Each structure stands twice: as structure tokens, then as C-alpha cells.
């Protein structure tokens, strides 16, 4: 099988970027081969004249415009009479229309559209009076228009190159000689940095985003050691070095508000850490925004393992930040699946480091409702776990949860969430099929396919849309097939997953009454789902040597599950 492709399209020479981008993709566990459509070929891609692109359309395409080509008339003659406002809008319309035309031919492509950057120091963004610098105005209008288009169009996302420029500076990112002689898109370093960020972005499109930021405390969240310097002796606040730590906390809190879970992993007395949260008003991160904490004296790798089990998340979704290089090395060595960035040597760099973690590990294309209040849900999960132990009778406990599930069919509103679930759910996921938004959109509302979503509430909180099932019709036997069945692990083990599957089966049987088949595709972490369907009364039809199993429930066979303690309601679609 040929590797999936990621295309990069724009009027530059991309060849030197290709190996850098492929290497950066590998670090995210992505295997795409990069196909370059550079100067001259970019327009052919849009017009449909590039045979290579047409015959092997990529899974994703990055479009990189060049501001100098788009608005060269202003560079040639700054007194040019054309309105920079309408020039910027027209150029953006042309680009968006070109992308839409390709999408019409190849609907499965996820598009990453880069902003235009002027590529030389001192240009653009400096002067906003259209009389003075129409070029800058046109570039800004263009970028605003494509940003808006990326919000509007499903399957498009914006890559803002100017953020890279403001982080590192144009003088470092671009090389005028390589640009002049070879249309290279950047300096050697600039291309490496661009490749890294593009890989992080493509990772986000593919759902390879980390979920948990596990933080050390002493000399990481604040300056000094609370056990030695005391609660009042640590550095944190609006003066001097304490400002660096405060800014870092603010950056971390911003990540939390966008859906990243925060955890503490610190070698300390728990009372000391609690005292800092309680008694230092400068703490930007409130205690209730921390989803879980492991404060103790063992190795950090053990702490992280405990956090993973408390939160019900895999270690490969963790990023661990610690100022101590020995601790970092211990974690890298013991738990290679945890991402462990280097820590800045100087606290002055902490703010930039903190905000950069977002781009490097927690990059999000867009936020949905499920990203808000996530900490609360995970805290509730931890609470439920502890109550479960206190209840002697499990049934009484489940009943006490007062669970209500809301189910939806072919919901257009939930396309983004459904795609996100298919990409992020690794444990309770029977088939591990990953769907981009454009894939879910294609399946939603099709007559021979039904997309089911389910959300769960209990007396602690609303867990949001946490389950997805895709059933494909099988006309040959007038039956159905579970293409996808997955449930987020934070709501598992309470009868919800069985109730959801039963409801899906009951629904599709009204349309086609033949057998319902399902499969289990073994993956690295989904072994717990192997006997899910047999427990619902499905028969094992076949099992391949690699563990791949196919199950079937005959037309007259009942699902072997009572309704448990989950009440269900269908949402009007």
C-alpha cells in the first residue's frame, strides 16, 4: 500500500523543506509522504492540470501564498490607485474559490491554508494608513478574509505564518539570498521551524493532540522550593523573577481553558503544595482547575502512571514539564511515550515557553462545547471512582448516579465532535477507524449509513457527547454493520456503552431487519473491547491470526442487555 500523502502547494521551492517536514511528522507518529507542488505547479494543481496531484490526491494539502506575488503592483508602484481593501478581498476570494474547485473533485482532502507573510524584515503590518502602505493593508485584508473562510469551511484550517514570524523574527526565518536565487521559502532554520509547526498542525488535523499537561511545582510553577523557602518565600507575583513564573501559570491556564487537562506531579509534602494554592493569592491557576495531582516522594514516572490511571487516559497523551533535568531524563527513559520538552534555563523565557507548549503539543483547530469544563468532568470522574469504592452494592451505586443519555442521529451540528471522537478515542474503540471532518460529513445523512451520537449526564455533571457509532447498511443480507463503535473512557463501566449499542441496534432494525454484524480490530490499547459484542449476545463468526474478529447477531436474536440504570431520550434531528 502506498503511503498517504500530504501536499504542500505554493509558489516556492519546497524540495528543501520536504525532508524536514517528513522528519517532523514522524515525531508525531505520522507516516505521510510529502508531495511538493512548487512555483509554477501550484496553479496547475488548482486548475486540475497536475497529473500527479489528480491521480494521487493527498489526504491533506497545505496552501502557502506569497504576498509579493499577490500584491506585486503595490510593490512596483506604491501610488497605484487600486483599493488595497478590495485587492485583498479579491485575492482571498480567488484562492478560496481555487481550493473549493479542487475540493469539488477530491472531497477527502483536509486543507491547511497559510496566511501570507511578506517575508522580509520591516515590511507589512507596520503601517496601516492605506495611503502610506497599500501593500500592508492588502496583505492584512487578505489574511483576515482567509482566516474567516477557514472558520466557515468544513475541513479547512488556518496556519498563521505571522505567528512564527513574531516568535522568531523575519531576519531569522527568511534568507534573502536563498529566496532571490532559488525561491526557497525560508532560511535553513526557518524551514526547520516551519516544518515543525506544520507537522504539529497536521497532527492536530489528524487528532494527534496531547491531552494532559503534567507539571512539577517547585521551580516550575513558582521560583524556589516551598518545603525549604516556605509558602511566603517562594517567588511568584508581579515583581522580578516571580513575574516569569506568574506568566508561565497564565499560559498554562490558557491551555486549560482550551481543553488541556492539568495535573501536578511533584515531589513534595501535599500540605505544602495545598498551602501555596490556598494562601498565595498570586497563584494564577486555581486549585479546582487541576484535574488530578500526585504529590509524593516516589519517582516521577510512577506519579505519571498513577495520574494516567486516575484520569483514565493513556501516557501517550501526556506532556511532562519539570525544571529538573534528572527527573526529565528518568521519565524519558522509563516512559518513552510521554512527551518531555526541555525546560528554559532562564525564568524570563518561561512565558514564551508556556505559550509555545500550546503550539507544540496541544494545538487545536477549533474549540467545541466539549472542550469547556473538561477539567470538571475529569474531577467528577475521580470523585465517582472514589464513591464506587465506598458503595458496597454496585447496583445501588449506579442507580444513585441518576444517569440520563441523550442520543442523536446524523447530526450535522455534531460533525466536528464526531470526527474528534473518532480520532482521539484509543481505548474503548472497536475498529479504530479515524475520520476527518470531511469524512464524517460525507457519511452523515446518507441513506445506507447512520451516524449515532450519545451524551451522558449524571448527578455530578454533564459529560457531553462522548460516544459514537456508525452503522453501514449491508444490502446483500438486508442487515447492518458496525463500522465504528466507540465510547470515551471517562463514562465507561456504568452500563452506558451497552445501552447505547442496544439503542443503535433497535433503531437500525426498524429500517433493515437482517443480521447485524460487528468487528473488533485489535490495536495497541483497545483489548478491553474484544468481548464487548459477545457479551451483548453476538456470535463470533471468524477470528483472524492477528486477533481481528467478526461477530453477528441474527435477525431474530435479542440483544442480551437490560436497560440498566441509564434512561435514554432521542434528540429531535
Amino acid at each position, binding site marked *: 500500500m502506498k503511503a498517504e500523502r500530504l501536499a504542500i502547494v505554493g509558489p516556492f*521551492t519546497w*524540495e*528543501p523543506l520536504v525532508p524536514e517536514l517528513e522528519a517532523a511528522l514522524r515525531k508525531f507518529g505520522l507516516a505521510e509522504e510529502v508531495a511538493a507542488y512548487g512555483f509554477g505547479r501550484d496553479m496547475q494543481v488548482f486548475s486540475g492540470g497536475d497529473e500527479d496531484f489528480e491521480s494521487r490526491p493527498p489526504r491533506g494539502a497545505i496552501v502557502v501564498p506569497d504576498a509579493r506575488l499577490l500584491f506585486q503592483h503595490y510593490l512596483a508602484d506604491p501610488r497605484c490607485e487600486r483599493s488595497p481593501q478590495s485587492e485583498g478581498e479579491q485575492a482571498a476570494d480567488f484562492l478560496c474559490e481555487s481550493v473549493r474547485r479542487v475540493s469539488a473533485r477530491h472531497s477527502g482532502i483536509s486543507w491547511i491554508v497559510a496566511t501570507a507573510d511578506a517575508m522580509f524584515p520591516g515590511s507589512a503590518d507596520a503601517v496601516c494608513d492605506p495611503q502610506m502602505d497599500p501593500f500592508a493593508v492588502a496583505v492584512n485584508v487578505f489574511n483576515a478574509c482567509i482566516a474567516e473562510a477557514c472558520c466557515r469551511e468544513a475541513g479547512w484550517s488556518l496556519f498563521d505564518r505571522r505567528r512564527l514570524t513574531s516568535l522568531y523574527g523575519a531576519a531569522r526565518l527568511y534568507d*534573502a*539570498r*536563498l529566496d*532571490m*536565487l*532559488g525561491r*526557497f521559502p525560508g*532560511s*535553513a532554520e526557518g524551514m526547520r521551524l516551519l516544518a515543525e509547526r506544520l507537522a504539529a498542525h497536521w497532527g492536530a488535523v489528524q487528532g494527534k493532540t496531547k491531552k494532559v499537561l503534567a507539571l512539577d511545582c517547585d521551580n516550575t510553577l513558582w521560583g524556589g522550593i516551598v518545603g525549604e523557602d516556605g509558602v511566603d518565600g517562594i517567588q511568584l507575583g508581579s515583581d522580578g523573577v516571580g513575574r516569569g513564573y506568574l506568566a508561565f501559570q497564565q499560559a498554562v491556564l490558557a491551555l486549560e481553558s482550551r481543553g488541556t487537562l492539568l495535573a501536578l506531579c511533584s515531589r513534595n509534602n501535599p500540605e505544602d503544595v495545598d498551602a501555596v494554592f490556598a494562601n498565595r493569592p498570586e497563584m494564577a491557576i486555581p486549585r479546582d482547575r487541576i484535574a488530578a495531582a500526585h504529590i509524593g516522594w516516589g519517582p516521577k514516572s510512577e506519579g505519571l502512571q498513577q495520574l494516567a490511571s486516575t484520569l483514565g487516559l493513556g501516557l501517550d497523551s501526556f506532556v511532562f514539564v519539570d525544571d529538573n533535568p534528572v527527573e526529565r531524563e528518568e521519565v524519558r527513559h522509563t516512559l518513552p511515550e510521554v512527551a518531555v520538552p526541555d525546560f528554559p534555563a532562564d525564568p524570563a523565557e518561561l512565558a514564551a515557553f508556556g505559550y509555545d507548549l500550546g503550539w507544540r503539543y496541544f494545538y487545536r483547530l477549533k474549540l467545541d462545547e466539549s472542550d469547556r469544563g473538561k477539567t470538571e468532568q475529569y474531577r467528577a470522574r475521580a470523585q465517582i471512582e472514589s464513591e464506587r469504592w465506598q458503595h458496597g452494592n454496585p447496583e445501588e451505586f449506579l442507580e444513585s448516579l441518576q444517569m440520563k443519555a441523550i442520543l442523536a442521529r446524523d447530526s450535522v451540528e455534531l460533525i466536528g465532535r464526531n470526527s474528534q471522537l473518532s480520532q482521539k478515542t484509543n481505548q474503548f474503540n472497536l475498529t479504530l477507524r479515524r475520520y476527518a471532518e470531511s469524512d464524517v460529513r460525507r457519511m452523515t445523512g446518507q441513506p445506507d449509513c447512520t451516524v449515532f451520537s450519545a451524551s451522558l449526564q449524571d448527578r455530578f455533571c454533564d459529560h457531553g457527547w462522548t460516544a459514537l457509532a456508525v452503522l453501514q447498511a449491508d444490502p446483500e443480507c438486508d442487515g447492518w454493520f458496525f463500522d465504528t463503535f466507540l465510547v470515551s473512557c471517562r463514562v465507561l463501566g456504568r452500563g452506558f456503552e451497552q445501552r447505547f449499542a442496544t439503542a443503535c441496534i433497535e433503531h437500525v432494525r426498524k429500517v433493515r431487519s437482517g443480521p447485524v454484524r460487528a468487528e473488533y480490530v485489535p490495536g495497541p490499547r483497545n483489548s478491553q473491547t474484544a468481548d464487548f459484542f459477545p457479551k451483548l449476545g453476538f456470535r463470533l463468526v471468524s477470528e483472524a491470526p492477528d486477533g481481528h474478529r467478526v461477530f453477528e447477531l441474527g435477525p431474530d436474536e435479542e440483544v442480551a442487555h437490560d436497560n440498566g440504570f441509564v434512561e435514554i431520550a432521542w434528540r429531535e434531528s
Partner: protein
Amino acid sequence: MADALLSTIAAVLEIEPKAVTDATSMRTCPNWDSLRHLRMVMAIEQALGVRFPSDVIPKMVTVARIREEVARLNGKAS
């Protein structure tokens, strides 16, 4: 330094380091095209910490010319 130069050039051209001599040139080496020429410039600049002026880059079409230019930038006689 000569070794570092030759091995950098060989790596970019994807040929055996032994096959690179002062006489190796853009004309005689099929792998040495204009794209690789610029990648070679980038690689040499990174390896040796020099920076070639843009008007010289297109003229550095033999290994001997590159060596001369590196020496000139390093303030030595060629």
C-alpha cells in the same frame, strides 16, 4: 576543515565522500543541479559557520571554487 567540506558536499550530492575531489564540478557531476547547489550552500554554511554573498553563490560551481571562497571568508589566502 577540508574533510568537513568534502563530506558535507558528498552528503548533499548523495555520492561517496571518496568520489568528491577539488575537480568535482556542477558540469561533471550529474547530481549537482541548481536546487542541490543551494542546498549545498545551506549545508556548508551550517557546517562551517560561513556566509556566502549572493553574487558569489552562482559562481561556486566547482569544489575548488567553494574551497577558495570558504578560505577567503575565513580570512586566509587560498
